[in-house]
């Protein structure tokens, strides 16, 4: 379908996985790369990258070697948890800062899946607003000028929520949002006595949000000017008539219906107080 290059073939695997959702034990449900020395050449790009900074012994001795075809990889990946493999190590590979030219002293909040928003916000707000004794005067007078919230995988939603809360509380913040894939390396070890070890590279979506009291480049993709808090939806509707293009196919399901589905999912998962009669 979209098997264009090495990177993409690797990410193909994600699609299968997203639909299957096999074991909740894995931290992130987005495994894209399953890297295995037994099958070199599967994803040339990432392998080159991998080996250059592989610090692990990376001794791979998997009972059933992966087939070279990239699409054959997901099944073994799905079985990881059941095949007596245990995750022993998880490291995020260093990726360059998504905001080039950013001053070095910027506060970076790394939002994780289990982070409490009150803890994150308590710390970040205190730093952005300066010392308590200064809080009486103009907010922009004290504290840091910029903060970056970043998170990946299931922490993405929380990251956005933190940024949204800060925008609302501090006010007149310029925002720059960047999306990308982040490579996470996991080492799995066999629990069945043998010393086999397997290194898995998966890419998870990650988000970085820069909030700044100083103006940012409006031409940069992902820039959001201050005070577009809830106006974004209405604003877009204004654009609608201007950018209306010739329709080629009938309307899909309306946005309302799509969000209905979304809500049903939430209902099913979130509210388990009483069974429906």
């Amino acid at each position, binding site marked *: *379908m*979209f098997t*264009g290059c090495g*990177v*993409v073939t690797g990410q193909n695997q*994600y*699609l299968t996985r*997203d*639909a299957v959702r096999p074991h909740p034990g894995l931290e992130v449900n*987005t495994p894209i790369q399953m890297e295995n020395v037994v099958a070199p050449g599967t994803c040339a790009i990432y392998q080159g990258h991998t080996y250059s900074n592989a610090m692990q012994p990376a001794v791979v001795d998997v009972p059933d070697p992966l087939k070279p075809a990239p699409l054959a990889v997901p099944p073994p990946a799905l079985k990881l948890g059941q095949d007596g493999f245990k995750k022993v190590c998880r490291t995020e590979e260093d990726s360059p800062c998504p905001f080039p030219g950013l001053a070095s002293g910027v506060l970076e909040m790394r939002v994780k899946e289990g982070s409490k928003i009150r803890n994150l916000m308590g710390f970040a707000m205190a730093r952005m607003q300066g010392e308590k004794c200064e809080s009486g005067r103009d907010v922009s007078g004290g504290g840091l000028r910029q903060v970056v919230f970043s998170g990946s*995988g*299931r922490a*993405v*939603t929380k990251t*956005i*929520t933190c*940024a*949204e809360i800060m925008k609302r509380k501090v006010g007149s913040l310029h*925002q720059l*949002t*960047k*999306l990308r*894939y982040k490579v996470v390396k996991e080492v799995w070890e066999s629990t069945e006595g043998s010393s086999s070890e397997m290194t898995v590279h998966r890419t998870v*979506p990650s*988000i970085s*949000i820069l909030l700044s009291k100083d103006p940012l480049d409006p031409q940069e*993709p*992902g*820039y*959001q000017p201050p005070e577009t*808090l*809830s106006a*974004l*939806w*209405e604003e*877009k*509707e204004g*654009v*609608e008539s201007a950018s209306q*293009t010739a329709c*080629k*196919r009938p309307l*899909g399901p*309306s*946005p*309302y219906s*799509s*969000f209905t*589905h*979304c*809500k*049903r*999912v*939430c*209902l099913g998962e979130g*509210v388990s*107080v*009483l069974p*429906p*009669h």
Partner: protein
Amino acid sequence: MSSIPLAAPLHADSASPAVEMDPVEYTLRKRLPRKLPKRRNDVYVNMKTDFRAQLARCQKLLEGGGHREICVHGLGLAINRAINIALQLQASSQGALQLAANTSTVELVDDLEPEDPDEAGEPMTRTRNNSAIHIKVFYPDPQ
């Protein structure tokens, strides 16, 4: 729309009996998010539809539909999937596509309807916020 009965306060037993509405059971109805723009090139991502189908729909819009840009929206849990779709589109375009993400807060309204009309519980509404993302996936202007 689906509804799930909800015991209004979970700690009904431990609360003081003076609070009258405690024993009343409410049905929690989540209203739909209000007012969404819907252009031809808007894609609203949800968690119910198959991921590949939603990705294929976006690809069709960009490749077959002749759109220079599409807008992928995700709310709450679907944010992750919206990001994934956008990143997949970008990866499969081999660098031709660019992403511009915006975030926003969407106010949602829940209706609380008394389960039993005899209990004389008042219908209530409750508002809460949820985060949303809007990703513009576009071919940059050849300048």
